[in-house]
């Protein structure tokens, strides 16, 4: 049985999924209770978890959920927003195709369906063009001036500020974790982050944490959430087989095979002719084991970590020589230890080839740990990498809450990893109009003598040379220094007075320039201060901007545009390949800011374009509004969505500041990735012509592709 109309089918599916996720999206969303087919009950706000718990047999539904899962694996954020945005896009597409099909009603069904398929393929192509060209262009030219940076110092020596990280993480967790716990989890994560990261390379450490998060956290049920804490070193989920207390730094050895030699190995035969042969082989084995253990003892090895279960003889000798033994460790734990301590496995010359013993390493301490009547091993490792090993002990009254927090923390690390990556943009600039529209604006805005820190165009006023002006305009738009300057004015906004940077707990290894408290003035977080509030601290930032101007001419991320633009009225440049990047650490305030900004600029762009580019831009711009609409649904009166929308549009069209009523930040890279993932999913849906249902899964040797597509 074949079904036609993939957009309609996808729309039905997406609407059903949207009805589920829209109840738990945003800070005001509730929890969703889901009964799995097995009878278990799941109470969650995590979009990815909910979607995976649903029992979906519809192929389009499975495809959508697969897209969401792969997006989450990469970014850790945005499952619910994904579904909402996809649903709005499908609605817009359905409206377009319905409108067009109402014109041609007298055509037969099959022909209409074929026409529809061609239409959808056409739209899929247009979406791809949008993604590759228009989106990057708009991000680079228009949106980048609104970006803030989570770092509070120039590029080379970027220091992460705890208060900005808290804002970011609070906004992340309040949509995922229960309302009574999210502040605590935010603090826990910030503590963990600052304890584990050295100032050298956060990326390496974040990557390690993200990949090995399962080994770096222990979940305990039956305790209140507030008992969760961070412990130095690593906690292994096994108990000591032999424990011999030792003081100070001790030597450790990792083995992956049984130390005692076996009678025979695989792919070899062991032929016995008599009892005495057996006895002598056995005796040899015992002596061999004793020799190896003596050898280890002579090297002062006090801890043996084994991935397999060691025989009793080994345990006996270990106890004799005062060696602690931990057995049956998972290979992931061992590889994590190797990665942290920089181990490289090698075999000792005296040891026979049967046994592989890696080199020894020093550990600071090793002792048993009892958590809620379960015993663990607590290892203090000496790290050679950028990661200072710490372990998170997550407590919760029931297993569900512990798992929820675990998933949320893991997702947060993925999100941070994305945040600290540079996002490269590349697009083709088409004609003169696009390019010139940016420069006249720059000269128009130099109204006040004092440059408004938030406007990078105004900085250009300082430059005398027109040629340089435009080049620097491009450079400055994508350089870190400007966004840092923005943040420097942003952070003082958060407090009523600027205190010295002493924020820190003693184990914060990163320098922090911004003040300790981050109270929000009257619930308003101003992006940039106006000149009227005479706060003396702003003098410094402004001066620093002037100084930084010299710096930004040269340094910073450059927009590699091969532009030769002498003056405003030269002949047009038809097209050039431009590549730029969104620097690491770019954030925007929460509450649908990214969506509204992109919506506004896309609408402007669509007005200047024709044909399919305009259509696609309008479609996406309208669909983007769906997200802030849902976020602002519970708000009333002056803070309702229409009021907020009007205010924002007014502010944007007059180049004023957008005022935000919510504290919190979100990562720009994450939003961009979400947009591209949704567009990719939509393109996949649009390229389906026919859905053919089969009663049974095809045999393994058949071609798998013939199941769902024509």
């Amino acid at each position, binding site marked *: 049985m074949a079904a036609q109309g993939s957009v309609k089918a996808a729309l039905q*599916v997406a609407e*059903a999924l949207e009805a589920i996720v829209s109840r738990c999206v945003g800070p005001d969303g509730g929890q969703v209770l*889901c009964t*799995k087919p097995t*009878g278990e009950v799941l109470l969650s706000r995590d979009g990815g978890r909910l979607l995976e718990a649903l029992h*979906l047999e519809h192929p389009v539904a499975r495809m959508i959920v697969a897209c969401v899962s792969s997006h989450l694996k990469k970014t850790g954020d945005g499952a619910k927003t994904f579904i909402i945005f996809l649903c709005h896009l499908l609605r817009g597409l359905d409206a377009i195709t319905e409108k067009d099909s109402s014109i041609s009603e007298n055509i037969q069904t099959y022909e209409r369906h074929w026409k529809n398929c*061609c239409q959808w393929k056409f739209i899929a192509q247009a979406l791809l063009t949008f993604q590759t060209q228009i989106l990057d262009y708009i991000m680079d030219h228009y949106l980048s001036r609104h970006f803030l940076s989570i770092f509070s110092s120039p590029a080379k020596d970027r220091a992460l500020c705890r208060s900005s990280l808290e804002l970011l993480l609070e906004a992340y967790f309040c949509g995922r974790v229960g309302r009574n716990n999210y502040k605590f989890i935010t603090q826990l994560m910030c503590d963990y982050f600052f304890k584990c990261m050295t100032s050298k390379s956060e990326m390496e450490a974040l990557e390690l944490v993200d990949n090995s998060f399962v080994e770096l956290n222990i979940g305990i049920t039956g305790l209140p959430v507030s008992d969760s804490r961070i412990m130095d070193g690593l906690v292994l989920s096994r108990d000591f087989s032999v424990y011999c207390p030792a003081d100070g730094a001790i030597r450790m050895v990792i083995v992956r095979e049984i130390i005692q030699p076996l009678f025979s190995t695989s792919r070899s035969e062991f032929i016995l002719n008599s009892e005495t042969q057996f006895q002598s082989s056995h005796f040899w084995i015992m002596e061999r084991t004793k020799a190896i253990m003596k050898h280890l003892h002579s090297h002062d090895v006090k801890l043996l970590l084994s991935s397999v279960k060691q025989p009793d003889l080994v345990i006996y000798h270990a106890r004799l020589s005062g060696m602690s033994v931990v057995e049956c460790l998972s290979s992931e734990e061992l590889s994590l230890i190797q990665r942290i301590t920089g181990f490289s496995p090698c075999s000792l010359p005296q040891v026979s080839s049967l046994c592989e013993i890696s080199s020894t390493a020093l550990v600071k301490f090793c002792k048993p740990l009892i958590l809620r009547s379960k015993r663990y091993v607590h290892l203090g490792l000496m790290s050679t990498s950028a990661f200072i090993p710490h372990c998170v002990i997550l407590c919760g009254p029931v297993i569900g809450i512990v798992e929820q927090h675990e998933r949320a923390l893991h997702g947060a690390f993925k999100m941070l990893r994305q945040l600290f990556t540079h996002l490269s943009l590349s697009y083709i600039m088409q004609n003169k109009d696009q390019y010139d529209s940016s420069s006249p604006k720059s000269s128009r805005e130099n109204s006040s003598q004092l440059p408004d820190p938030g406007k990078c165009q105004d900085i250009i006023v300082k430059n005398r040379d027109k040629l340089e002006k435009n080049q620097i305009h491009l450079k400055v738009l994508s350089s870190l220094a400007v966004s840092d300057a923005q943040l420097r004015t942003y952070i003082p906004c958060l407090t009523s007075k600027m205190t010295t940077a002493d924020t820190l707990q003693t184990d914060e290894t990163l320098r922090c320039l911004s003040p300790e408290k981050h109270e929000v003035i009257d619930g308003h977080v101003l992006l940039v201060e106006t000149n009227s509030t005479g706060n003396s601290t702003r003098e410094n930032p402004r001066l620093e901007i002037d100084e930084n101007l010299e710096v930004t001419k040269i340094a910073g991320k450059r927009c590699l545009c091969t532009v030769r633009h002498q003056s405003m009225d030269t002949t047009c440049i038809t097209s050039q390949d431009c590549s730029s990047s969104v620097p690491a650490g770019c954030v925007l305030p929460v509450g649908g800011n990214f969506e509204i900004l992109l919506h506004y600029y896309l609408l402007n762009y669509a007005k200047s374009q024709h044909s399919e580019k305009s259509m696609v831009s309008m479609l996406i711009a309208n669909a983007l509004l769906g997200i802030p609409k849902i976020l602002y649904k519970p708000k009333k009166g002056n803070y309702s969505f229409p009021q907020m929308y009007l205010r924002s549009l007014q502010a944007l069209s007059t180049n004023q500041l957008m005022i935000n009523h919510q504290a919190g930040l979100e990562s720009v890279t994450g939003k961009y990735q979400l947009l591209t993932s949704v567009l990719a999913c939509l393109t996949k849906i649009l390229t389906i012509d026919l859905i053919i249902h089969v009663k049974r899964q095809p045999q393994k040797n058949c071609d798998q592709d013939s199941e769902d597509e024509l």
Partner: protein
Amino acid sequence: MALNGAEVDDFSWEPPTEAETKVLQARRERQDRISRLMGDYLLRGYRMLGDTCADCGTILLQDKQRKIYCVACQELDSDVDKDNPALNAQAALSQAREHQLASATEIPSGSRPTSQPPVPRPEHCEGAAAGLKAAAQGPPPPAVPPNADVVSCTQTALLQKLTWASAELGSSTSLETSIQLCGLIRACADALCTLKQLQH
């Protein structure tokens, strides 16, 4: 917003009439209701199948007892048939009346020239109670005196509907359907009263 560029010049697009807007609105509301119900059932552990219902095209659900369930057919009244002039005489009549009114009153008299149809309309929109509320808040009928035989036709239709609804109510087992049928009966009764007032 042409996607097939050749077609646009041939046909000019006009904005939908009030009736069409109402139909679109009702359809959208119905779709919203269907998606909400489907979401509820999915959360309860129902399985979303890959098949669609033969009657209404909604995606089918299957519960744990492997019973197939169509949300639209079994929980909501079908709305499409009632508003389709080709299938339902009443819808055709109301559409004809609308056209009559539109041509008769060139000057936009009042904000709702389609306030005449609210009298027979409520029972056609699904969720008759919702429709009834809309009709109750609507402006009073315009000054144009209605055609006598049209009124009697409407009364007959209403009585027919009333009979049908009461028969359905007697045999209905679903709570949702019963509530909706009661709403329908109430709406029919009120419509009959209004019609009687119109006649006098």
